[in-house]
């Protein structure tokens, strides 16, 4: 693997080296310039002081200045020559002084020439080195920039885009050949993961289809024998094959009723299976709330009367609710008939519909029955749960009504629940999430 990490680290290291080298060279150059400049200065200073000393041998300032110059002068031979000169001045020999001075001046002139040359050389050396290392540093940085841009950020954002698409279930993407570096590894890992996900999605689709097929076949396989059973019983009871004695007729009736019940259970189970697989076909539209409530209560009027229970509803908001009206009626019918079943004679079952401040439609079915214990409330919406203590119903339930109601409500995007205390009646409620003001419905129509 051609490691990006290694490459970038090397680049940064080299850049560091170049910068340190620049700094070092700059310092070196400064030192040199400083040195030669000050030496040239010292040279002129020394000549000046020598002159002063010649004029007055007792000039203490000049003498001490020369002494300090002597300490700082370089190289050593200049120091020696200066020393000789000072000695001859102090000794008072004019001739020696003149000769030594000539030599000293010539030496100094040479030295200054030499020093200036060094300064010039130093200057151009510095300019060159500094220019070169600046250029190298710049090149290294540009290289680093391009590497990060092309080998890191571009592939990263491409990968990000692919992953984002994937997240939104756009599963079509190209399996590019990944680069031979760390990002490539990341890309490869993603590719592998993506493939796994796709395989699982396919598997789920297959399972789903198998489930659908099973439901379809089971539906047929269960209904066919029931057709024969129900049919036979029905024909016997209808007298098609002759008269039968009352006891036999009674038994046949029992068998007929129970096979009808079995058919209802099978229908409910298959419905429930479909709802849970989220394959239950709902046809939703904005439908009048008033119509829904009126139709439902009308159809249950007979049941209520037989059970000696009042079925009423509170004033309704004038809305059209987004729902499958047939299925919502099924839910309401289920809740209301349960309420009637569990209500004592002469009591009232009331339906209330209201709009919440979260823009939902809240349906409540309130009864004055015995209420439901908190520990039962948890399980009530599960399959085949029937609470003990209901009166013998006119038509026995399947135990699936609430489970189906829950599934239907949830498929509308709503939620269902119960509020109840033992001895204080029950309130079964559900929310549907979307509604419109009914007047808009009329305008559209």
């Amino acid at each position, binding site marked *: 693997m051609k490691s990006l990490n290694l490459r970038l680290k090397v680049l940064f290291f080299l850049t560091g080296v170049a910068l340190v080298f620049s700094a070092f060279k700059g310092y070196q150059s400064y030192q040199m310039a400083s040195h030669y400049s000050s030496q040239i200065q010292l040279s002129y200073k020394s000549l000046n002081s020598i002159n002063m000393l010649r004029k007055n041998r007792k000039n203490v300032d000049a003498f001490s200045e020369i002494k300090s110059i002597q300490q700082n002068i370089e190289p050593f031979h200049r120091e020696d020559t200066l020393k000789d000169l000072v000695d001859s001045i102090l000794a008072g020999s004019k001739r020696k002084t003149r000769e030594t001075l000539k030599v000293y001046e010539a030496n100094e002139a040479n030295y200054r020439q030499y020093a200036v040359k060094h300064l010039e050389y130093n200057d151009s050396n510095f300019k060159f080195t500094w220019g070169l290392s600046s250029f190298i540093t710049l090149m290294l940085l540009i290289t680093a920039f391009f590497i990060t841009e092309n080998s890191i950020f571009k592939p990263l954002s491409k990968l990000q885009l692919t992953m984002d698409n994937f997240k939104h279930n756009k599963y079509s993407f190209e399996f590019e050949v990944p680069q031979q570096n760390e990002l490539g590894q990341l890309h490869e890992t993603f590719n592998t993961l993506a493939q796994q996900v796709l395989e699982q999605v396919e598997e789920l689709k297959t399972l789903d289809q198998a489930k659908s097929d099973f439901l379809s076949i089971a539906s047929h396989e269960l209904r*066919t024998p*029931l057709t024969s059973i*129900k049919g*036979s019983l029905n024909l016997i009871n*209808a007298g098609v094959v002759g008269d039968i004695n009352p006891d036999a007729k009674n038994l046949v009736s029992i068998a007929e009723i129970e096979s009808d019940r079995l058919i209802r259970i099978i229908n409910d189970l298959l419905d429930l299976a479909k709802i849970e697989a989220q394959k239950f*076909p709902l046809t939703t539209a904005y439908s009048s709330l008033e119509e829904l409530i009126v139709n439902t209560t009308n159809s249950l009027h007979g049941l209520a009367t037989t059970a000696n229970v009042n079925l009423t509803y509170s004033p309704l908001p004038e809305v059209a609710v987004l729902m499958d009206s047939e299925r919502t009626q099924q839910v309401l019918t289920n809740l209301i008939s349960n309420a009637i079943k569990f209500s004592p004679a002469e009591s009232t079952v009331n339906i209330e519909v209201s709009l919440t401040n979260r823009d939902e439609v809240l349906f409540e079915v309130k009864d004055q029955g015995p209420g439901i214990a908190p520990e039962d409330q948890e399980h009530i919406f599960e399959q085949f749960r029937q609470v003990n203590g209901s009166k013998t119903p006119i038509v026995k339930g399947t135990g699936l009504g609430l489970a189906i109601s829950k599934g239907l409500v949830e498929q509308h995007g709503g939620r269902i629940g119960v509020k109840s205390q033992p001895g204080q009646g029950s309130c079964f409620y559900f929310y549907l999430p979307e509604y419109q003001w009914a007047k808009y419905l009329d305008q559209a129509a």
Partner: protein
Amino acid sequence: MKILLAEDDKNVAVISRMALEKLGGHEVDWVQNGEEALEKALTNTYDLIILDEMMPKMNGIKASQEIRLKDKNKTPIIFLSAKNQPEDIANFLRIAEGHIPKPFNPSTLCQLIDETLANASKEVKAG
């Protein structure tokens, strides 16, 4: 009426025939698969053809398509089937005059048939 009944389950066939013959007074010819149904439909004349969906050799839908193609009498067809999902019913109604779901009540079978045929002819007149 003279009715052709295609049903592969013998028990269901017995019950259907009893209901149609004893309660409805109809004459019933019985076959057990789509192939035989097609054959009989083309050689004889019937007032009504009742088809089950899931049959061996040729299923109900296929048989009905073939009959529609070749039957000059335009005999009405009713599906009698356990398949009751909206897609299935839509498929049936594309070709046939009606659909009666299984399990059915034999006592009311004849009534259902009469109603279905009445609706179908109303639609023809209206359309």
